């Protein structure tokens, strides 16, 4: 485990005796960030830390609070056991008022149990398992789940006149949630799900499924899978000359999809919360600065972390001057219309599930194009 402390303002030195104030105010505010900085998920942790440093630096530079905010990064390898150890360390540090992370749902959930017991607000940028926010009122996330995405894709299809749809998804917890959330909303809107097919993870042969679907003559196909499976699926659809339009989950938003599937990916509809080519000025500013500082293209994970840090900082500003764990939790729950790079985010004060604007995209000439 490595501990990195970044004091990003010389301001710390300038307010050494803040205790003269009527109320004893802290000299700094500490946030914990647990994330994988080593191991197989380190690429994600690296992105989170990059984004967090960018957000924090801008925040401190703007001088919105009289004291600086600092982030303590702790490596968990996104391993649930390490996550618990780090969580204990964070709750024992009385200075820490809130925690960001972890990366995977399972690590976030295990750490979340510790935070629930002690009463520490936790905001994960990526934990999308339904159980995560159900642990206690202390858990938040700013990533949308299929319970949010499915109904919106169903609505989109209805607008495009789709009445009959076939659904194909990967056979795991996530794939099941893709199908159930979408199908329920689509049927509620008067549509008909004419075929549902699950495939085993690792399977790259979709011709049998595609033929079976084509027989049902749907108006559209909805696919819930990751980009590698998606590429094989789309390619084989083209080979079988099946011209039924395809809608996909946001998990297929990955430039490599076009590289792998080639002409097969043309015309696919998908929704996303973050788009690095978005024309919106604050997204462009984020993308450009990220590129300049870290020499790589920010993706959905970088953007999720950037927004998570900013949402938490906003909550701290609102809680000022009484920045306690309980107050930060209260203020996090009041997050409304936060204008992030992954869309406008609102937390439901009861379920603590985020609602966001989903952008609609289509692949045209090998490019992800924003639909208006």
């Amino acid at each position, binding site marked *: 485990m490595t501990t990195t402390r970044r004091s990003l303002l010389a301001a710390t030195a300038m307010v050494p005796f803040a205790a003269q104030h009527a109320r004893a105010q802290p000299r700094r505010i500490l946030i914990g960030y647990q994330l994988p900085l080593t191991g197989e998920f380190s690429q994600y942790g690296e992105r989170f830390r990059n984004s967090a440093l960018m957000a924090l630096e801008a925040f401190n530079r703007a001088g919105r609070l009289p004291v600086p905010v600092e982030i303590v990064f702790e490596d968990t390898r996104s391993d649930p056991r390490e996550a618990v150890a780090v969580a204990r360390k964070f709750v024992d540090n009385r200075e820490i008022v809130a925690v960001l992370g972890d990366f995977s749902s399972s690590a976030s959930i295990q750490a979340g149990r510790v935070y629930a017991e002690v009463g520490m607000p936790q905001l994960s940028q990526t934990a999308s398992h339904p159980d995560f926010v159900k642990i206690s009122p202390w858990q938040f996330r700013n990533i949308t789940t299929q319970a949010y995405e499915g109904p919106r894709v169903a609505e989109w299809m209805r607008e495009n006149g789709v009445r009959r749809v076939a659904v194909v998804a990967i*056979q795991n917890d996530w794939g099941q949630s893709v199908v159930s959330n979408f199908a329920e909303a689509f049927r509620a809107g008067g549509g008909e799900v004419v075929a549902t*097919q*699950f*495939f*085993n993870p*690792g*399977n*790259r*042969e979709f*011709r*049998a*499924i595609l*033929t*079976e679907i*084509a*027989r049902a003559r749907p108006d559209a196909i909805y696919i819930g899978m990751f980009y*590698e499976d998606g*590429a*094989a699926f789309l*390619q084989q659809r*083209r*080979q*079988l*000359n*099946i011209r039924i339009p395809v809608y996909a989950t946001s998990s297929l938003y990955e430039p*490599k999809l076009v*590289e*792998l*599937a*080639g*002409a*097969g990916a043309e015309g696919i509809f998908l929704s996303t919360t973050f788009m690095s080519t978005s024309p919106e000025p604050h997204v462009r500013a984020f993308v450009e600065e990220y590129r300049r500082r870290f020499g790589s293209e920010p993706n959905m994970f970088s953007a999720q972390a950037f927004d998570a840090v900013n949402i938490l900082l906003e909550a701290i500003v609102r809680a000022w001057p009484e920045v306690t764990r309980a107050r930060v939790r209260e203020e996090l729950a009041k997050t409304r219309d936060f204008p992030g790079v992954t869309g406008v985010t609102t937390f439901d004060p009861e379920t603590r599930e985020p609602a966001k604007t989903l952008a609609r995209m289509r692949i045209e000439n090998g490019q992800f194009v924003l639909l208006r």
Partner: protein
Amino acid sequence: MFDRFDIFFVQQLINGFSVGLVYALVAIGFTLIFGVLNVVNFAHGEIYMIGAYAGLLAIIFLAPPWVALLLLVLAAGIAAGIALERAAFKPFRRFRDEASLKSKAMRESTLLSSLAISIVVRETVEKIFGADMQAIPRAYADAMQEPISLGELAIASGQIAILAAAVVMFASLQWILKRTDIGLCIRAVAANPLGAQYVGVHVDRTVIATFAIGSGMGAVAGLLIGLYQGTIFPAMGFAPGVKAFVAMVMGGLNSIPGAVICAIVLGLAEAVATEFFGQGWADLVAYVFLVLTLVFFPTGLFGAGRERV
């Protein structure tokens, strides 16, 4: 259920046939090596993967014409096969006494050594190239993925290429086995390794030749299937390897024609199974076939004859 015999059913049969050919391509080399050594070569799937990666590198850096590409991959497969034999199999043929030659334990220890090599090779490739699917230059991928419409039916150009490759491989293997000296040696060692040695067959050389032939074919199969499916990644050899193994067992362990026929039957059965239950269950078909074969035809469907390979 007769309303199911429509154009889509025919399409499903075509899909199944092409899946079966994919299994058959892998099963040919697999069965050849089993026939000679009487032991499963667990690294065959990795030879298949190496073929795909060797081809991909050649495409990226040299962009050779197709014939040169196939020859290059064939050479890479032969080299990999000889290296594999040297590392995983040869050390266990060190002891020349009769007890060791007949010992099952000696032979079966190569199960583990080939498995070990396969893990090392796969992990190494993963370290170098990453675990994700490689992008294939479009010119080559498109050549194998172009749709061809036959009325309401659709096939891909790659399916024709794979059919052609299967026919060529099967025929050339039969020619090698039946018409050449080395083929005669291979058949002799397969039938009776000790006897072959007594009459002066150079067993070591024959085994190496078997690996060279089987692995060369495995590598070419890997490239063709990788391009056709557009999926080249380190673990790509596993799934077809399992199905080829089932086809080999069904075919009677050491009958190459038997393995090819069973591979095609398996592919057809999997595709038709999708008609009746979810594709997630189609993998079950292979294992049901395997169990049924072992229970009712312990020597396989085509394994009764005395002639091996």
